[in-house]
Structures are given as C-alpha cells and as structure tokens.
C-alpha cells in the first residue's frame, strides 16, 4: 500500500482521472446522509458495553460474515491489488484464495469456539484469560497503537487518492470523511460499524461488477482476453497462478511456491484472519456459537469471489487499455499512468454519469468502513484491555460505554494528527505499516498454541510472543536497512526474492521463532491448573457438537465445501 501512496503522492498534483457529474455527486452525498442517519438511529440501541463494543452479540451469521469480509475490503487494498493484477497477472489472486480461504475456515471451525465460549471482548482479552496480563498487555498496547496509526496513514493515503482521481482537496477529504465516521461510530458503536460494512459490501460489488462484465463483452470472453494479452505482451504469462512458481527467478514477484504455501497460506494469512482483532471482532458479534462458526465460512465464499471485481479488471486492463501502464514513479509525464491507477481507469473506460458515481461511492465507502473498523476496534481494546485492567477496574458498565464513545473520537483525532504527520514525513508510513506486520505472525503462534496445548505456561506465552516479534523486527531491519544483498538470500532463501516474498518468509520465521521459544519456555516453567483453563483450551472445553443440526446447517459441511471450491479454482487457473 505504501507504493500506492507514494505513486499517488507523486502524481497527485498533475492531473485527475475522472470528472463527476451532478448525478454522481448526488449519489455520493446520499451515501453520507444515509450513514449518518443510520448512526443516529442506532444510538439508542448502543447502551451497554456489550451493545456498544460487540453489537449486542446478536448479529446473524450472514451479517457478521459480510462485515467480517468487508472489514478487509478497503479501497486502498482494492486499488493496490487491481494494480498488482496488472503487474503480475492472476498470480495476485493468491492473496484472496490460498491467502485467505483456509484461514477463514480454520477460524470458523477450530478457533472461533474458544473465542466465543470464553466470552472475551477481544483477542488480547482471550490472551489475558489464557496466559495472563503480560502477553495480553503486550498484544493490547501494540494493537491499539498500531491500529490508530494505521487509521491515520490510510486516511491520508485515501485523501491523496481522492485528490488524484477526483481532484478533491486533501484537507476536505480528511475532515469530512473522518468526522462522518466519528459521528456515526461514536453514536452506534459496533452496530454502526457493522451496518456500514454491510452497505459497503453491496456498494463495492454493484459499483465494480460492471467492469468485468463489460470487459468480457469487449474482449469476447476469456479466450479473447487471453489472445489480446498475448498480442499486447508477447511471451509473458499473466493467466496462470502456480505454473511460474517453480523457482524465484521464473516470475516477476520473485516468489517460490513454498513462500506462498507456507509463508502466506500457513502463517501470514492465518495470523491476519484469526488473530487481527479488527476482523475477529465482527465474528464475536454473532448471536450464537453456530453463527460465530458459520460467519467466517460464509465470508470465505464471498472472499473467493472478490477477484472477479479486483483481479479480473486488472488482467482485463492488460487486454483493453490502449496504453501500457508503468511502475509507480514520481513525476510521471502527462498521459502516462501507473499500475495502481488501473481500477479508476477501467471505471472511467466503461462507466458514464451515475455508474461512475456509484463506483466512486464504493471507494469512498470502503475507505470510511475501514476507518470505522479501525476506530471501533481501537475503542474496544483500549477500554477493555488497557483502561479497565490497568487504570480503572471497578467502574460501572455505563462508564465504560462512555469511555468507548470518547475513545472513538479521540482515536479519530489521533488518526487525523497521524495523517498530517505523514503529510510532512512520508517515510513514517513505511515504518507504521511494517510495524503492524511484526506482531501478527507471532501472535498466531501464541494464540494457536494456547488453544491447542494446555501445558503452555503464562511466561511461555509472553516470551514466545516477544521473541517472535523481536525476530520479525530484526529480520526486517537486516533485509531492508542493513544489508539487503547479504540478508535477503539468508531469510528469504533467494537473492531474487522481492518485497512480497521477503514478507512471506519473515512471517514464517517469526512464527517459527515464537513457537520454538514458547515450547522451550513451557518445558521449564509451571503450567496453569486445569480449572483455570476450562473454556480456553481444546482438551478442557466442551464444544457444542452438531449431531442434532441438519446436514446443510453444519458449519463443517460448508467449510469443507469452501476448501473444495478453492482446490477447483487452483486447478482451473493452475
């Protein structure tokens, strides 16, 4: 995402891609009006802590599932992955398929019962119950700080995107969007955030789906598209996912299949989808355990379909755009466009007044929903995992709701401050994003071991998490800052490994470090008694079985169906 930001920042002043008409502006204004109205409507329902922070724990599996997948469907991700699809072809879909589906199914079938049965409000909350305050404190503080910084970084990056695409003033974009989000999240809490995420989900689909439909009509279908791509880019393979991954040097990503399977599929995506509280919080809002298990599995089917509106437009652009897009670079000459502009360019190619407004509203909605997700998760973790355990243990529930509301606004103002800080010092963005990645992979090791092995001790959890995080930071510094030529082949296994490949292996080794340290410390420390671990660990928890549920209502059935569909897609696009 930092590349997108840098590109837009560099080009932002020179041109804009689309021109909005009155009907387009009306569509955008109506969206703002509706989300504010929904926020005020939901305010009266967000009275208790459970209402405000967990949407009353009464969402259906469909609502929780759509919010779960939508929380990750931010605008910058859409723009960035469409650009990656133009650059790397359909290989970019790995991040939507093997990089998401197994983790979502795993969350639903294996991990969700423990999160749900323990009645925790958050992932750090689970760590506190399972390990104690050391691991929970480390996780809560890093999550809270990183989430709010990320929110600010995203805020500024999106404002710059709006400047380039629409010509909007950066300050206008930052303040209007963040104040709107602040008002409706402070009013309705997670209720508002989830409602907006579901709206955003529909907007993104209906705003972007016309691009692949019209693109396929223009090219005459898949074979016509492939023929045009081969004519435009002779000798290059953009339509196979696994075939070019036999070695690092055979594909432009510089990735080997082991990096995708073990780094992305087994560690990085598992870490993100099962322990990042921003997405897990949506599932915790489910009304019962079956809904909580089903929600991520329902989300997995929609996630599997997202390449249709993100990756396919990028690949279609290779076939239909009259110009060749270029790598992100400062000061591109007029008429040249970079990879990450591919989605707005395709939107402008096919969509006239009205449809263009819908597409732009989808991007704005994605941005605002992402911000709402960040501030609602921040408010929860701050209130329940930092403020309550460390600062004010015995306040009434009403006080914590009030704290959550204030936190939402304070969090937003910190985000706005971060946005202006990034405006002055753009390199901060790279560090903030890198920092966020440091914690996710080792956290997965800590949470998973804690759920599956009752012997793991309090200090093993904390020291394993700390060691994994420190190892991740060390690898990042060695590969990015100290001596890339020396350290990239060591950690990423090849001098050809590019940034994404380095990330994959960095995640893999940091998770391995976490697991090894956790196991070693466990062997030399005293475990918690069984009675303290009931409802938290696999061997000591009675998970409701589904013998009495009809076959078609069992989460396991749909989880297996999602995995089978995933395998079929891999074979089709091998």
């Amino acid at each position: 995402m930092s590349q997108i930001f840098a590109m837009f920042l560099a080009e932002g002043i020179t041109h804009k891609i689309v021109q909005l008409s009155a009907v387009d502006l009306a569509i955008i204004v109506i969206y703002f009006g509706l989300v504010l109205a929904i926020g005020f409507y939901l305010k009266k329902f967000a009275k208790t802590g459970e209402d405000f922070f967990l949407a009353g724990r009464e969402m259906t599996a469909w609502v929780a599932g759509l919010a779960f997948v939508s929380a990750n469907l931010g605008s910058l991700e859409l723009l960035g992955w469409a650009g990656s699809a133009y650059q790397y072809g359909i290989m970019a879909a790995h991040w939507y398929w093997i990089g998401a589906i197994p983790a979502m199914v795993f969350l639903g079938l294996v991990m969700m019962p423990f999160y749900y049965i323990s009645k925790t409000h958050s992932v750090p909350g689970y760590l506190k119950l399972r390990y104690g305050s050391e691991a929970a404190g480390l996780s809560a503080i890093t999550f809270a700080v990183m989430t709010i910084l990320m929110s600010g970084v995203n805020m500024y990056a999106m404002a710059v995107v709006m400047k380039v695409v629409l010509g909007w003033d950066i300050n206008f974009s930052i303040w209007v969007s963040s104040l709107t989000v602040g008002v409706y999240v402070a009013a309705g809490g997670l209720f508002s955030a989830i409602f907006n995420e579901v709206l955003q989900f529909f907007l993104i689909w209906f705003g972007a789906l016309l691009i692949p439909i019209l693109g396929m009509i223009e090219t005459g279908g898949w074979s016509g598209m492939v023929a045009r791509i081969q004519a435009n880019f002779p000798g290059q393979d953009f339509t196979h996912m696994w075939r070019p991954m036999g070695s690092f040097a055979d594909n432009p990503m510089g990735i080997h299949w082991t990096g995708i399977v073990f780094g992305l599929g087994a560690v990085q995506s598992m870490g993100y989808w099962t322990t990042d509280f921003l997405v897990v919080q949506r599932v915790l809002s489910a009304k019962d355990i079956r809904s909580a298990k089903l929600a991520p599995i329902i989300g997995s089917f929609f996630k599997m379909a997202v390449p249709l509106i993100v990756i396919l437009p990028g690949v279609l652009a290779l076939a239909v755009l009259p110009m060749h897009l270029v790598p992100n670079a400062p000061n591109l000459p007029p008429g040249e466009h970079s990879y990450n502009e591919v989605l707005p360019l395709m939107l402008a190619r096919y969509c006239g007044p009205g449809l263009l407004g819908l597409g732009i509203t989808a991007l704005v909605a994605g941005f605002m929903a992402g911000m709402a997700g960040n501030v609602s998760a921040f408010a929860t973790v701050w209130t329940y995992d930092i403020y309550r355990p460390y600062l004010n243990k015995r306040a009434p529930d009403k006080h914590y709701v009030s704290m959550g509301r204030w936190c939402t606004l304070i969090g937003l103002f910190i985000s706005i401050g971060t946005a202006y800080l990034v405006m002055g010092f753009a390199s901060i963005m790279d560090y903030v994003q890198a920092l966020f990645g440091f914690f996710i992979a080792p956290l997965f090791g800590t949470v998973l071991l804690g759920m599956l092995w009752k012997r793991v001790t309090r200090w093993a959890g904390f020291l394993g998490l700390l060691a994994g995080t420190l190892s991740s930071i060390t690898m990042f510094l060695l590969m990015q800052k100290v001596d890339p030529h020396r350290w990239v082949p060591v950690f990423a296994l090849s001098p050809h490994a590019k940034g994404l490949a380095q990330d994959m292996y960095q995640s893999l080794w940091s998770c391995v470090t976490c697991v090894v340290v956790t196991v070693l410390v466990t062997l030399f420390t005293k475990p918690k008694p069984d009675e303290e671990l009931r409802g938290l660990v696999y061997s000591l928890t009675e998970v409701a079985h589904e013998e009495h549920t009809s076959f078609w209502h069992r989460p396991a059935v749909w989880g297996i169906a999602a995995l089978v569909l995933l395998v079929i897609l891999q074979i089709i696009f091998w």
Partner: protein
Amino acid sequence: MSEKHHIIPVWFFVGLLLLIYGVLIFVSGLTEWAHPPGTVLAELHAPVWWGGLLIVLGGVYCFVFRPGKTSC
C-alpha cells in the same frame, strides 16, 4: 436481525440505498439514451439495465425487510 433490540434489519437499509441509486442511475441512463457518453460500449446503455437491476433488487429488499416485519 435483532430480536433483542428490534432494530430495523440492515438489509432494509441496503435495499433503500440500492433503490435510490437504481432510480438515479436508470433515469440518468434514459436521459442520455439519444446522446450516450463517450465511454466504451456506451451503445449497450449499461446505466439503464444496471439501474433497473438495482431498482428490482432494492425494491425486493425494502419489501421483504421493511420495518415492522420481524423475520429476516
């Protein structure tokens, strides 16, 4: 969606938004019928049938999940 709080289902709001957008896009498509914009495949009049689709879906959602109807 909510039995405890009796909140209007989110699907109703989705339907409302799709319905409003459908009308705007459909009408916009009709007004430019004789003079399509300079977009590729403008002769297919995508705003008309896409707007129509949004109207139908939005209308169905609004009706099925209208306030006061508890099922979802």
